[in-house]
């Protein structure tokens, strides 16, 4: 699978990562190389195989539907780059 520069830019946009012109060019080669390499999986016949969804066959535990945690607003805001009056401050998103 050969990816082009436009695809790299589209992916970077989806991933919300700023990349420079130069990086985009390098990534075309690197991503194409990796995608070509993983292409060998197409040799494997998986038509009758279920995808693996868990490592050990255990039933997920259930617990009572009750509040077990909370009241930690201070903790949650402690590492925020910007806060005000108990809220996160983020760039304006609605004009």
């Amino acid at each position, binding site marked *: 699978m050969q990816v082009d520069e436009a695809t790299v830019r589209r992916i970077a946009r989806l*991933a919300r*990562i700023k990349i420079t012109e130069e990086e985009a060019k390098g990534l075309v080669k690197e991503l194409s190389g*990796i995608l070509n390499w993983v292409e060998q999986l197409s040799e494997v016949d998986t038509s009758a*195989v279920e*995808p693996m969804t*868990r*490592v*050990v066959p255990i039933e997920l535990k259930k617990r009572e539907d009750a509040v077990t945690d909370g009241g930690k607003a201070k903790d949650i805001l402690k590492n925020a780059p910007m806060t005000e009056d108990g809220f996160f401050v983020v*760039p304006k998103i609605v004009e």
Partner: protein
Amino acid sequence: MTELTKLTLAEARDGLRKKKFSAAELTQAFLEAIAGANPALNAYVLPTPELALAQAKASDKRLKEGKARPLEGLPLGNKDLFCTLDLRTTACSKILDDFRPTYESAVGANLWDAGAVMLGKLNCDEFAMGSSNETSAFGPVISPWRRKGTSDKLVPGGSSGGSSAAVAADLCLAATATDTGGSIRQPAALTGTVGIKPTYGRCSRWGIVAFASSLDQAGPIAKTVQDAAIMLKAMASHDPRDSTSVDTPVPDYETALAEGVKGLRIGVPKEYRVKGMSEEIDKLWSQGIAWLKAAGATIHDISLPHTKYALPAYYIIAPAEASSNLARYDGMRYGLRETGKDLIDTYERTRGAGFGKEVRRRILIGTYVLSAGYYDAYYLKAQKVRSLIKRDFDEAWNTVDVVLTPTTPSPAFAFGEKSGDPIAMYLEDIFTVTVNMAGLPGISVPAGLSSEGTPLGLQLIGKPFDEATLFRAAKAIEDAAGRVTVGERWWEASTKPGTTAPAAKAKKPPAAKKTKGRKK
């Protein structure tokens, strides 16, 4: 005081109980060793001497009162992927900046509740993505090992390179580590230490910075098999906060060691004899087979036909899960923020500046394989291949108890030797990654030295939750091979004997501009 730091975890435990030395003396010896060695090795990114001495003092009190817990007073290193209460946790990435968790990881809490002392946070590859520790935002860790007669800087392996280097250089008794594709076993092999990745679900992942959630698992790196057994017993637990952690009792691995390997069935998979494997590794493998045979085990040829597909499938699944997990680093709630002209621009600048090259590369691969139209062709396909890899092992367990392979395809390499080519670096994990894909336990045990005088390791793979048998088999190899320790302690040359080394300082997080906000 070097003598105290050279003790194994088990020896130190016995010494403390017999009052040969105090926990404070032991801890002080390690703190001095760290201060002397860290400028050369860069193993610790945040030494925590005050916390360590306070914990040691509390341990001495308990020891005196006869209330010692299993790891009372034993100084450990903690990989910087484990969240530590009020102490900077970075995953060795710029994007977490000065993040100070308001909680302790489950594994960390288990260790401190067992009486262990934390010496500091250990360096690793950024978000545990790497096999050489070259991707850390704090700079690489230097292996205490050197090739015979040279002073080239070698890699300590990765991602748990700080853990492996610190244990090998006697800068802690043992260390925490994590393994997503080989990040415990490969660094252990390259530094002459013992590393075990337990069964997926054996240790809680709660409070560990996530990389690929269906593969990540915590485990110890230690000096001996016995030490690793003691460590895993303390680290493992069921934890309701990690729904994948398994509620099954943790056996006493240390007592299991005495059982030996008589009658144990060892499988040797032909598919691991890969092209380009060094002759030395091949010889080492045969030697391992001979040792286990001599100890009373029986040897059986087995086939794991889908082995060659494990690595390419891994490099779909791990980046896909990483791209999802790392979406949380958006500069809004914690960590670095680079303000741009609008919200999207702020996200892009923050993530562009905060993530290193390898992490960006993997997020992009992951984003690509999960993007519209590609999910079935890549992620779903890889998960199906994963089922086949697991099935290979399930069938093998009908005839054998343990599988023996080399840990790595080659001995330790020098800096830069593989960093130019991502796939060459990914091949480091060729023997270890199958174990994560199948969720099985795997241990690397030192088995001798290469012609260059650097350590080589053998890997044992076990049935789910059968770590006890792995420890027994690893012990048989350790008994036959003998422990390997670093000959020349070159990193100590700069500190004169008798003088007190300056207190180790916390490494500053690498420069990254950040928006000053109004903090409450």
